[in-house]
């Protein structure tokens, strides 16, 4: 089972993502509500995949992505972004995010992205 870490400041989003992923046979090894905790948990849990929100308190998703990538250049991080954050998503891609999912998302979209990333 693939291990996933969910980083999002909205508990609702974490729950939604978790339920989609669990339904599709992923194991959620951890959740974090801001970038800083996300980085910490990444080091702790070594997940196969991270879903990362962009707008978060303490440390943004972009910063967290940079830290995770610095720690593990092979980290697979998928950004979750809302419309209107194109520039931030671009920055995330430049900094090594594997892909991104635009909110509001569908189960189908999320699974497509995650499955593809895990194959690569």
């Amino acid at each position, binding site marked *: 089972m693939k291990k996933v870490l969910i980083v999002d*400041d*909205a*508990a*609702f*989003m974490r*729950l*939604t993502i978790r*339920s989609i992923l669990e339904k599709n046979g992923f194991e959620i090894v951890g959740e974090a509500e801001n970038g800083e*905790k996300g980085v*910490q948990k990444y*080091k*702790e849990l*070594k997940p196969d995949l991270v879903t990362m929100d962009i*707008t*978060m*308190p303490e440390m943004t998703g972009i910063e967290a992505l940079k830290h995770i990538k*610095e*720690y*593990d*250049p*092979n980290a697979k991080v998928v950004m979750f*972004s*809302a*419309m*209107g954050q*194109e*520039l931030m*998503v*671009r920055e995330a*891609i*430049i900094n090594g995010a594997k*892909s*991104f*999912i*635009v*909110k*509001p*998302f*569908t*189960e189908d*979209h999320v699974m*497509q*992205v995650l499955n*593809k*990333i895990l*194959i*690569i």
Partner: protein
Amino acid sequence: MSVQYTNEPMLDMLIFETTQLIEQLEQSILNSEKSSCYTEDAINEIFRIMHTIKGSSAMMMFNNISTLAHSMEDLFYFLREEKPSNVDCSTLSDLLLEGVDFIKLEVEKLKNGDNADGDAAALIDRINKFLSVLRQGNNSTVSTKEIKVGQIDTKKQQYYISQSKVEASTYNNAYKAIIYFEDGCGMENIRAYSVIHNLKDFTDQIFYLPDDIIDNDECIEAIRNGGFKVYLKTDCSYEEMHKIFMQTIFLKNLELIQLENDDELKQFLEEKEFTDQEYFNKAPCQHAIYKEAKEYTDKELHSPPTQQSMISVSVSKLDKLMDLVGEMVIAEAMVIQNPDLKDLELDNFQKAARQLNKITDEMQDMVMSIRMVPLSATFHKMHRVVRDMCKKLGKEVELKIFGEETEVDKNIIEHISDPLMHLVRNAIDHGIEPHEDRLAKGKSQAGIITLEAKNAGSEVQVIVKDDGKGLSKEGILKKAKENGVLYKSQEDMTDREIFNLIFLPGFSTKDSITEFSGRGVGMDVVTKNIETIGGSVSVDSVPEKGTIIMLKIPLTLAIIDGMNIRVGKSRYTIPTISIKESFRPNEGDIITDPDGNEMIMVRGQCYPILRLHEIYRVKTGITNFVDGIIIMVEQDGKSTCIFADELLGQQQVVVKSLPEYIKNYKKIGGLAGCTLLGDGSISLILDVGGLINI
């Protein structure tokens, strides 16, 4: 309602989280309004909150909430990025609060299982107008949209060369690829960008159409309709290239063609360029970092994570836990004080019993502390009440808050929020005078309402104080007479008793009921609410100085430390916290005044004595003070002495309210409830405050 995610837990979570965020937002707005400017932190916070609400509600397809949140987010994005100087804070606050109210209402609808069908179009419209006014006023940096439009006009289609101009012939193969993304995957331009970004590993000669994928939103349409075209030169074989392209996420369709010659490519080479040298330099050193990191992680694996984490638990589970602990405390007493054990020498049993006692104590403290919540959220809600009231009534009021960190049981908090709001409204509406009157009286223009909470023994006092005109005794008496709630002749009544008339059902001093206070219900609702949680309300007032309303609420409903005493065959429990001392009196210290009231002199102070057996008409053989025991109790700085037969011992007792049929029959003064003792007998818990006032 959403078709996609109808799952209850998610909706619950959405409601819970949105409610919290909205509260936080409201607080932030009110604070900002008070300091009459929105700080960078506040703007960031509001932006983030709106962003989260937008995302979550869009997920559940509550489009009205999400579009409203979106428009507010846009507004704050502008504020954050452009830092305009011409913001009309008061209008901004009004708009925001209106939005807050709208979302609150919608969330409330969701909570009740209704559809969130409100329409915020008008408000969104006003927010957008507000934003465009800001934009116009902030000419120095014209809005980003406008810049874009201008650019497109002048730029037309330009080809973009992404890499440095190395000789075009270093690579052997040229390809043309057209990528189609799946419908609805969103941000096609950025997806295209990431394709290019990935390709940079294989070549430095890439050209693509449309070229301005980042800066131009309109190219999204172009990509959707015509696909994203990529031209590149590389050494990779067709199969390799195909594989790379197939990794593209949300790929619907790929056309990959190997080009015979460079002709199509060359047209790109003449124009602009930018280097991506940096990227290539970075690649090797990343591997080095990776190695180091690997070693590091191996070490780290062995040290367990020490982070503290939180979980949220449903209140009903906590309630259940509390009940169970209560039962356990009783069970413990039943075991340890079991009558079968009487007069037995049981050293080991006693030791074990002490250990059990210690653990149950700790456990209980822990359960209590879990349930304790600070009053701050409840108090800060009042800011909004004050603000709205002031705007409507044209009064100026400053709300001062003290002791917001005071903690009370979660159940209790829920019960005092409404009464508190009612009191604050009343204070503003009836208490605080209009500006002119205040100035004429030599008071400050702004009225002051103080909310204060403090711990006093086993209870918490919440005080609502205003510096308004005070209560009018004549008004109250007149009204009381009209409504027939006067229970004794007015000459016999103390000021306090008169003031407390306002808490009686069917009483309301204002003839016309205003929108805020009143509502056809009087202060008796406050009393009722507070009494259900075992608290009490009292009022004091000085004409032209103001009114003080004090709510006394128990810290917790469940378990108290008590001293069991015996009178005849009855048992009573006095909360240990109110006991000052207990002693056997000397005959000589007892004083009887001409009215027959008995008093005792202790260290030069005189205290009244209450004979419990007289108050509750219990038969006992001990009526002589020197045969029994005196327990001095204190509450609110007032002391009294209780006379009982003997002390039985101290123990934790679970407070149960008196059965309804007793309460219905007659309200018995001085009793706070009852409890079950270890031997199965029932003990009445004395309410010290009530006894003192008997």
